Each structure stands twice: as structure tokens, then as C-alpha cells.
């Protein structure tokens, strides 16, 4: 059931290059043509991302699972797995900075753990994982994730999306990426053919007309665009209510004026709590050392 009828009657295979490039503030996304017979037959699509130094890939998810190969560079990634606790806890950088200032002003030594530190930790988030050259990263369908290049060279990742996986119940040959921030354009949108897009908009238009005929006038004037994040389509007021924040912040979530693309630059670098990074050689050496040192001990 992986391919539709006639999609695998291939007479000739060719090496394929990316057919579309999307430049963003902090990097580049290259997309292979998902309509190519080879991809349609195998039920997958492939993209390659190059995240520049200090580049942050906006959080997103797709309807099919992904396998990601880190071709070059180092970075970190955060997954938002439903139901998982925020196990990483920290002082916020501001709080740490303020604490540092206070210490400096007092001119004294750092005060003990027990004094004045209770209730100070300001941030909690889910586990952060390191991305290293040569890693394969498995991403379950629908799990949102972000990535940041904290290395000295571009972080290059080759990403396979299994659109024919049983987890994907949306389009089988065109992956849909849902962003939680920014105003990025769809990676595969241009390849779907203009007629497909027109048909979709026509259908949406008909749906809205239908609602209006039923007396349910569209309250937001029907934002229609091929870029945006999942918050853009909500009513700003409802969104503000849902988050318990001002409408000004809710508008920032919707990011309609954001032109940075799907990879943004973090000028001052991203400071988050993460596990210490060790190279493969260091880890090997450490495990060899601990084996010889502790021998038969438990």
C-alpha cells in the first residue's frame, strides 16, 4: 500500500538534486521534488537544512515520522513530547545575571545554597538533546521540535519524512509542516502545482461562503496566505484568553509581520540548560576508564 497504482513502474532512475531553496535569516532549506516518481513510489520526501551559527530553527511538526541525519556541525534540539514533564530546571539568565550583580556589589563570596535561593528557579523545560555530526535522530509523527546551532560551523541536517507511514493520515505524497512560531512558507507548497493550490483556496472559499449563507459570518475576515504558523488563524482575543496574556503578546504569537523565515538568528546566543556535551572519543575513553578502574565492582 506504499505507492499508488503505476507509481512504481520505473524504467530509469536518476540521481536527484534539491529542486527548491528557501532562504531564511539564519539558514537555508533545500527541498527535493516530492512529486518525483522515485519519491512517490517510495512514499517519502527529503529535505536538507543548513542552520548557520547561532541560527534557531523555529519549532514545527509534521504528520509523518522523520529520520534526521546530521551531516555536519553541532547543535542542540528540544522536543515537545505530549505528556512528558519539564525535567530541566534553571535560574533564568536574567536571574543569574542579577544574582551575579548582587554578588559583585556585595563584594563578598557567593552565599550558600540554603540562603535566598528558594523559589528562585525561573524556568523549566523538557529535555534538550545534542546534535552531533553523524547522529541519526528519530522524530515521531506530530512531535514538535526546535533546533539551534551552537557550534562554529553550519549545522547541516538531511531529513527524511515518511509520508506513507501509517501515522500520517493527511496527504500521502506532500508532507505538511505545521509551525508553532514565525511566518514561514510551506516547504513543498510550490511543488504541488498551482492548480492544486487554487483548488484548495476555492474549496476554502466555498466553505466560507457556505458558513456565511448559514448566518455564521466569519469573524476574522478569513486570513488566507501560504505562510504562517498555527496561531495565525485564531482570533487574537481568544488566543490571548487561552494563554492568559495581553492581545499584544498574542499578536506576537501570530507573527504576521515576521519576515525572518523558518530559521532565525539569535544575536546574543541561546543560553539554556543542557546536558554537558562530550565527544564520542571522550565518552569511549571514559567508559573504558571506568571499566578498568572499577573492574568487578557494582
Amino acid at each position, binding site marked *: 500500500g506504499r505507492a499508488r497504482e503505476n507509481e512504481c513502474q520505473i524504467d530509469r532512475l536518476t540521481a536527484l538534486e534539491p529542486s527548491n531553496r528557501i532562504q531564511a535569516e539564519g539558514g537555508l532549506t533545500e527541498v527535493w521534488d516530492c512529486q518525483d516518481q522515485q519519491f512517490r513510489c517510495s512514499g517519502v520526501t527529503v529535505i536538507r537544512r543548513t542552520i548557520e551559527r547561532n541560527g534557531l530553527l523555529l519549532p514545527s511538526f509534521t504528520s509523518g515520522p522523520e529520520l534526521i541525519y546530521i551531516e555536519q556541525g553541532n547543535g542542540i534540539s528540544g522536543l515537545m513530547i505530549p505528556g512528558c514533564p519539564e525535567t530541566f530546571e534553571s535560574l533564568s539568565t536574567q536571574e543569574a545575571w542579577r544574582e551575579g550583580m548582587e554578588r559583585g556589589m556585595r563584594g563578598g563570596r557567593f552565599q550558600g545554597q540554603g540562603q535566598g535561593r528558594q523559589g528562585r528557579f*525561573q524556568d523549566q523545560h523538557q529535555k534538550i538533546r545534542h546534535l552531533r555530526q553523524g547522529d541519526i535522530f528519530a522524530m515521531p509523527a506530530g*512531535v514538535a521540535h526546535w533546533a539551534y546551532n551552537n557550534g562554529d560551523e553550519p549545522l547541516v541536517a538531511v531529513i527524511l519524512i515518511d509520508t506513507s507511514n501509517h501515522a500520517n493520515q493527511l496527504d500521502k505524497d506532500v508532507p505538511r509542516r505545521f509551525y508553532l512560531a514565525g511566518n514561514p512558507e510551506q516547504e513543498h507548497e510550490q511543488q504541488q502545482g498551482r492548480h492544486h493550490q487554487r483548488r484548495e483556496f476555492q474549496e476554502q472559499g466555498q466553505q466560507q461562503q457556505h458558513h456565511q449563507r448559514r448566518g455564521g459570518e466569519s469573524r476574522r475576515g478569513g486570513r488566507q496566505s501560504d505562510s504562517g504558523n498555527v496561531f495565525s488563524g485564531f482570533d487574537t482575543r481568544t488566543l490571548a484568553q487561552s494563554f492568559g496574556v495581553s492581545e499584544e503578546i498574542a499578536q506576537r504569537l501570530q507573527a504576521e509581520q515576521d519576515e525572518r523565515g523558518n530559521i532565525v538568528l539569535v544575536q546574543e546566543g541561546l543560553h539554556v540548560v543542557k546536558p554537558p556535551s562530550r565527544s564520542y572519543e571522550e565518552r569511549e575513553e571514559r567508559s573504558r576508564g571506568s571499566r578498568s578502574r572499577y573492574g568487578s565492582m557494582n
Partner: protein
Amino acid sequence: GLEETICSARLSENIDRPSEADVYSPEAGRLTTLNSFNLPILSFLRLSAEKGVLYRNAIMAPHYNLNAHSIIYGVRGRARIQIVNAQGNSVFDDELRQGQIVVVPQNFAVIKQATKEGFEWVSFKTCENALFQTLAGRTSAIRAMPVEVISNIYQISREQAHRLKFSRSETTLFRPENQGYQRRE
């Protein structure tokens, strides 16, 4: 041997009983989930269901279904439902009334807000263990991200990012804003 498996299988479960609710808030409502864990026959059918009740003006957190389409049927009352596609376009922003159905495709984001009459619905989901991810609230995707990341992706200050992340302490069902304690019988 079918009588050992299919013929004697439990085929039904009541999801309307408030005492069976999986999520309950005296100010916002309740939510009951039926999946292959509490009704094993659903793993054969690869389907599941959910029953929800939202009290007056309460909100169900913005969320998306990870692995299923959701077919929402209005049982009682009315709610404003907003559904957004991958391009961030609103594909549905209307009231759903008793007896009406709306389909929420997999991964499309949705918010339900009950009107002053409140709202009850049943959702049929096209996966035996359907999962949803909330986008606001205590167990949401936003809570999973560091404040620094939130601040950078939404171009807001760290204080605003902190507020955005921690303002809502509820998980799934949100009490209406500026409304005192409203216990419903």
C-alpha cells in the same frame, strides 16, 4: 475459537458519566477518553472517542491531534470553534450547534470556546490511541520550551515570554477569564 476473542469481547463503555471523567475542572468542565486501553475492541477498529463538556464560556486549550482526524459532533449547547491549517489559515471559525458535525483533520490546530449555554460534544477519532498536544497551559508545547527560545522565536522580552509560558496553570480545560468560581451541578 472466535467465541474466545471477538464473540465475548466487551463492546461498549459509557463515557457520559461525570464520575468517569479523565479531566475535570469545577470551573471549566470535563473530558472523558475512550481508547483501546479502556475498551480493547477499539484496537481492532483503530478508532477511539472522546466526550467533552465545557461550562459557560469555558475554553478547551488550543491543541492539535497528533495521529488522528477528529470528527466533532455537537451534543448540547453551542461553542465557537476555530480550526487552523498548516499555512496558519483559518479554515473554520463558526459556531457548532447541537446536531452539527465538523471534521478536524490531523495536526490542524483547534480551539473550542463554549457560549453562555455551555457545550457538550462527542469526538470520534481515527486512531485507537489518539493523542493530542495542547499549545497553551501547564502541559503544553510552550511549557516544554526554554524561556530563551520563546523569547527569540516570538520576538518578545524574557518577562513577556515568562508570562506567556506560565500564565495558565490549567492543563486542558480553561475557566473563562475574569469569572469567579462557578460550580455546576
